[in-house]
Structures are given as C-alpha cells and as structure tokens.
C-alpha cells in the first residue's frame, strides 16, 4: 500500500545523508591517527579560539543592537516612501555574495576609498586604512547580520497587539519607557535564538575573514583550517581544527534548537500604529533609517559604478572568465535541482510521519521524524570548509582525481548550504497539502504520479521557485569550498573574483563583481515578484 510506506523514501534519504556525513567525519577524525586530535594544543590554537569567540561575540552584539534599532525605527514610521522596497532590500542581505559586498565595502571605506577621499578633500586628512583587521571584519559581519536581524525584528514589532500601544499612550510613557515595558517583552523571545544564530554565522565566517583579516592575527578557525591545508599542508592541524569546529558548532546548535522560537512569524495584516509619534521622534526614526540605508546601499552603489567602468569587452573575451562562469552556472544548476529533490522527499516524509503520529504514536516514527529534521540542518554542524577537508582526504585516500572530487564537493556543499532554508519553506506547505487532500486522494484512489503532478506541483509552485532562487543565489556567490580546491583549472566566479582581487586587477574585479551582483539580485528579485512568496 502506497499510503503506508509514504515516508520510507525520505527516511532512507535522510539516513543516507547522515551516513555520508558520518563517513566524512570518520574519515576526517579516525582515518588519521586519532591521538593527534586530542594532543598538542598550542597557544596558537587557544589564541585562535579566543579571537574567534571574541570576534563572534562583538559581531552578534552589534548586529542585534543595530538590527533592533533599525527595525524599531522602521516600524514606527507610518508613512514612508519605498518602505516595502527597503524591507525587501534588507532581506536580500541573506543572499548577497559576501565577496562582492566586501569589495564594495573596501571601495567605499578602504584606505583610498570614497569616504577617505572626501575627508581628505574637505579636511586635508584621511582616516587611513582602518578597514583591514578586526574593524573590517566587524563591519562586514554587522552589515550582513544587522540587516537580517532587522528583517526578523521588524515582524516581531509588527506582531505587538495594538491594545498595548493604546495602553502605553494612556499611561503617557515616553518612547524609551514604551520600548522597555511594551516592546521589549515582545521581541525578547526572538533575541536569544537570533543571537545564537548570528553568533554561529560569525563563528563560522570564512570569506569575510579571509579577505578583510589581512593577516593571521585575525583568523577564525575556518580560515585557519584553510591555511593549515593550503599554506602548510599540515593535515593533522587541519583535522584537529576541524574537530574543534564541529564540536563547538554542535554545542551551539543544541543551544539554538532549545532557544529557537519559530522565526516564521508571518503577519498578514500590517498593523498601523494609530498615533503619530511627535515630530522630534519621527525625525530620529527617519535619520536612523536614512543613515543605515545609506551605509547599506553605498557598497552596492560602489559595485555598480565601478563595475560599469570595467572593460567588459576585454573581460568577456577572456577564456578564464567563461570557464569560471560556466562552472558556476553548472554547479548552481545541479545543486539547485538536487536540493529540490532532497528537500521535497524529506519534507514529504516528515509531513507523512507527523500526520500519522496523530493517530498512533510510535517511537520509531518520532525517531524518524527527528532524524529527518537533523539531516536537513546538517550543514550547520559541518561547515563547508570542514566538509571540504573531508572530501579532500577522501580523494587522497582513494586516489580519486582532485578535479572530480572538487566538483562533487561543490555541488554537495551548496545543496547542504541551502537545505535548511528549502526544508523550512517546503515542509509547512507540504504538510498543509497532505492534511487537506490525503483523505480525498484515498477516496479517489489515484496513483502517486498523478497525485504529484495534479496536486503537489501546482500547490508548491511558490515554494519551488523560492527554493530555486535561494539555492541559485547561495551557490553562485559561495566562496568557501572553492577556496580549498580552486586553482587555474577548477574555478568559479567568486574564486575568479578573489584571484583578481589578490593580484589587484581592480578593474577586472569590479566587472566580475557586477556580473555576480546582477545575477544574484536579478534571480532573487525576479522570483520574489513572480512568486511573491513571503520573504525572509
């Protein structure tokens, strides 16, 4: 009977995923001499840990602070031109390729950047090169994560019941008292989960630290793993650091899953707060939004203006550019379709299990369901650099050609990177479809394929488009695994861009950056419009 075994493919798939990851981890930690992992922790490693934690803590604190500030101001501005556009712009931060934004940040805030040039012109003095090192890392982390946090908190502010604002008005609270007594309790549930998520993202940060760190003094564990393998070819050190990374990420994940109060707060009715703020307060809100919007847009603008000055006829005639372009598109396409299949099968199985557990609770079913959820977020525990080291050792131990391993690793890693997002988008909808139609389907008794084509596909259109968009954008902009495997033969657009930045071919670099930005934003906004799926 089909209905009985509906969850089997998903369970098998999630089992295979977990087995594969465990195999890579086994390969990583025990194919080598396991004693190695637990001995020889030098001051280098403890310094590395210290800096990674320090950097991630400040980054998450600042991101939360500014995220709350921006969303607070935004939610109190009743009439604001382009408000929806601004919000969707902030939410696009999630998919912006970090290497492109970093290039934009350097163009605006670098030693010879716009800001310094203006200051030099006006005051005859410049700030110098403050963007390399800790300052730059923090700036870039806050750039991405504050916008992400602002997006989440904006919804949280909007979910505050109108009556409470009424109450605050009646009590005559000023805006700070109102924030403390009325608004803070409402956004509090989101803070801990979001803080930990941002902490994890900054803790695992790779591309930003690689480019803006400027020296080993500012390394995260991820970058140190990369350097151990690519600069020192010190496999034991790379393995040791990977082990640390996995252990710490796992602990963080456990905390996150405990503290995570569903982020998908979808508020249909955009409540307007009835009472206008005073003119003074409105002025503050406006200035806050204006300042952050400017900081957010300037690097994008820099990519645009510099990119338009690039010599495209030269760039487009380069064979290497097209090699990188083709590889990027091929990897993005394969990983996106793989992702679609994996996320569908997993969500389908989970929905099936959840619905069945309503009637009879079997321990096995609960176990399967947990297993599927775990396998969908496996990327958070095993970040791509660790995954890359695992793949690399695999290719060494089984003398598999490096080129082939690299392509497989890239497709697989990009799929895993987008899987948590895809799963969270697909699952709720599939759950709804299943609970709505399953009984009818049983009565009609149509086969699985017609069920899929007539019922699931039409109802999942938006989710599929959204999943493809996220996956394409992530995959196109990713600079992590490719940094381990990349060279003249194995190349993608972000890697090619990184090479050009490394050799200070600024003109070519800004051209490639613009191509990447247009591709990613193009895909993201077209699909948002096409599907008008709730953006997050």
């Amino acid at each position: 009977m089909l209905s009985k075994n509906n969850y089997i493919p998903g369970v098998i798939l999630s089992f295979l995923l977990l087995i594969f990851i465990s195999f890579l981890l086994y390969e990583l930690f025990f194919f080598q001499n396991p004693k190695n992992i637990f001995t020889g922790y030098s001051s280098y490693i403890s310094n590395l840990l210290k800096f990674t934690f320090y950097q991630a803590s400040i980054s998450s604190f600042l991101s939360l602070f500014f995220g709350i500030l921006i969303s607070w101001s935004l939610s109190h501005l009743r009439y604001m031109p382009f408000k929806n556009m601004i919000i969707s712009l902030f939410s696009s931060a999630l998919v912006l390729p970090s290497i492109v934004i970093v290039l934009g940040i350097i163009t605006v805030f670098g030693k010879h950047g716009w800001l310094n040039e203006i200051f030099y012109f006006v005051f005859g003095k410049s700030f110098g090169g403050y963007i390399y090192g800790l300052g730059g890392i923090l700036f870039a982390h806050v750039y991405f994560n504050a916008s992400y946090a602002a997006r989440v908190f904006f919804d949280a502010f909007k979910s505050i019941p109108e009556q409470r604002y009424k109450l605050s008005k009646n009590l005559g609270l000023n805006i700070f008292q109102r924030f403390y007594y009325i608004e803070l309790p409402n956004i509090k549930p989101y803070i801990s989960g979001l803080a930990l998520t941002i902490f994890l993202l900054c803790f695992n940060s790779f591309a930003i630290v690689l480019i803006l760190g400027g020296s080993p003094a500012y390394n995260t564990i991820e970058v140190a793993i990369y350097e151990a393998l690519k600069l020192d070819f010190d496999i034991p050190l790379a393995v040791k650091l990977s082990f640390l990374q996995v252990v710490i990420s796992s602990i963080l994940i456990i905390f996150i899953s405990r503290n995570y109060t569903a982020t998908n707060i979808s508020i249909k009715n955009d409540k307007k707060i009835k009472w206008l703020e005073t003119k003074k307060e409105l002025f503050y809100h406006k200035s806050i939004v204006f300042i952050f919007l400017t900081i957010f847009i300037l690097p994008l603008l820099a990519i645009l203006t510099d990119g338009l000055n690039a010599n495209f006829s030269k760039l487009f005639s380069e064979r290497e550019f097209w090699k990188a372009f083709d590889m990027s598109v091929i990897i993005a396409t394969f990983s996106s379709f793989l992702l679609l299949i994996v996320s569908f099968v997993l969500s389908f199985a989970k929905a099936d299990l959840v619905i069945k557990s309503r009637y009879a609770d079997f321990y096995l079913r609960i176990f399967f369901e947990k297993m599927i959820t775990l396998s969908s977020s496996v990327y958070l525990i095993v970040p791509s650099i660790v995954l890359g080291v695992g793949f690399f050792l695999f290719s060494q131990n089984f003398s598999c050609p490096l080129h082939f391993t690299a392509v497989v690793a890239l497709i697989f890693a990009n799929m895993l990177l987008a899987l948590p997002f895809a799963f969270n988008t697909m699952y709720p909808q599939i759950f709804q479809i299943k609970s709505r139609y399953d009984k009818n389907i049983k009565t009609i008794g149509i086969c699985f394929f017609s069920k899929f084509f007539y019922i699931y596909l039409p109802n999942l259109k938006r989710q599929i488009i959204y999943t493809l968009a996220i996956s394409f954008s992530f995959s196109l902009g990713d600079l992590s695994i490719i940094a381990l495997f990349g060279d003249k033969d194995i190349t993608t657009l972000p890697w090619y861009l990184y090479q050009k930045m490394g050799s200070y071919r600024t003109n070519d670099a800004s051209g490639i950056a613009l191509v990447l930005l247009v591709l990613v934003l193009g895909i993201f906004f077209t699909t948002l419009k096409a599907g008008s799926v709730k953006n997050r």
Partner: protein
Amino acid sequence: MVKAIFTALFLISSVFAAKKPVLNIYTYDAFAASWGPAPKIKKIFDKLYNCNLVFTPVQSSIGALRKIQLEGKNTKADILLGLDTSSMQMAEKTGLFMPYNADIKNLQLPIKWKDKIFLPFDWGYFAFVYNSKTMKNPPHSFDDLLHLDKNTQIVIEDPRSSTPGLGLLLWVKSIYKNRAKEYWHKLSPKILTITKGWSEAYDLFLKGEADMVLSYTTSPAYHIIAEKKYNYKYAHFKEGHYMQIEVAGILKSSKHKKLANDFMNFMLSSKFADIIPTTNWMYPVVKTSKPLLQPFLDRPKKSILLNDKDILKYKKEYIQEWLDAIKK
C-alpha cells in the same frame, strides 16, 4: 611483410612526431608572467629539445608545492621551480622529488652547492624597497624599522606560503635569536598586511598602499633598466642582508624524467643565465655571455644565510613563534 612493418613504424613514428612531449613546470606567478623569464626560456628550450614546455603559475612557490601535494599521485607537474634554500628541505621531506644528474662545477654561487635533489637557477638578497620620492629617511637597520614615522606602513609576505616571507623570518631570527618574538611583536603595528605571495605585496607597494615592501636588493634594477625610474631604492641594513638561492627539482612521478633532467642542465647554461637578470631580476648562477649591467652591482656589504639543518629542525617553531607574536 617488411614493407607493412615499415609502413606501420612510419605511421607510429609520425604520430609521435606530431605530438611533442609536454614538460610541465609548476612555478610562482612572477616567473611565468608574460614579462617574466618563462616565455624566453620556453622559446629556446622548445627548439633545442623539440618539446612543449608548459609553465603553470601558482600564487607563490610554496603554494606550487602545496598544489603538487594536494594533487597527490595525479599531479601533472614534472618540475617544481621556485623554492629556495630555506624551503627545499621541507620539500625533500615529502619524498616526492628525485635527484638530478648534472655537472655543477660551473656554478658561481656565494656558497658551495651540496644538495643532490634541488639545483639552483638564480640567487639574490632580500631587502626592503622604498620610494625615495615619498620616503626621505629610509631605515638602516631592523631597529630603525621599529622607529619609523607613525604613519609609515610596510607590507610583507606570509612565511607559510612565500619564500621571501620565510626569508624575512629567518633574517630576523638570525639577528635577534631568542628575542625574535619580541621583535615581531613590536613590528606588528607597522605591518599593513601580510600577503600570500611576492607579486601581491609588490603590487600593493607600487600602488602606494604601503610605504615599504619586502623584496630584493635587485628590485631597483628593474625600475632603472626597464622603466628608467630612479626613485625606487632598497634600504641598506647594517646587520647584513639575508640571501636567497632559488632552486628547481624533478618530481619522482614525472613521465618525462629524461627531458626534465635536460631542463635541469639547461638551467646551468649561459643561455639560461643570460635571460635571468633582466626578466627575473636576480643574479644568475653561472657566467653570463656579457657582463651584468651597472644597476646590479650595488650589492650589500654583508650577507647572512642560516644553516640548512637548523632551518628544517626549527622552521615550524619559528613560524609558530611568529604567529603568536603578530597576534594583537
């Protein structure tokens, strides 16, 4: 029958003749660049040995070694060119290289060559290079470097990936001995950034991002001879300058060992030596057909080179010390 065999042999030989053997050399980017020695070397060597010499550029020479290690048994490389006396022991330890077969009696080096696996192809001295237009008081010692003007910043290379970076590490070590860590700690605020290879660092310097760069005593010769610019100079350090001898070695996994060895011998010819000074801007290892141009004659008075064995033994420790010291 005989005719058929001859025809077959002819066909086979013509197939082989059409496909010249390819000799792959992995090297650092500046060597393989269009303005570097590689194109000129290829032109002569291809003709002499009827083959196809292919240079694969990597960001740095140690990076090229890592590429070979990463590729493992499937590497295409026949020769690795660009390591130096400070990094070759590390390469020898990998067991991936085989001894050369060449007569080295013509070598003209400041030291006697003993290594059986790696063979030198050029040499020079490390030095900090500056622009005399913008820097009026260049440092004359490592101590001066610490007391430079507050806004003056230098760019150096990472000792884990680049031979100049490793050279500087050993240079400082040979002068400061057990106070080297302290020295690096004091120097770290002056370092703008640490690059993976020499080209990156030199580009940053020429763009004006940094005031000084770790390069070679022969770098100014490039600006004088090729660009007629006289404002780039190297800072004479009274402690002496660390020496670099760049080397090449044959991979055990090479499918063209004979041809690779021919290349090693070619490196010791005057044809090769004539190319080196004005393309790689280093000193040749054998006599050139014409005397060296004037700008090459400004040599440091004192030179330093650490013992090979010490380097192998302590390199890891020195790098660890350096990593700790530059932490802020």
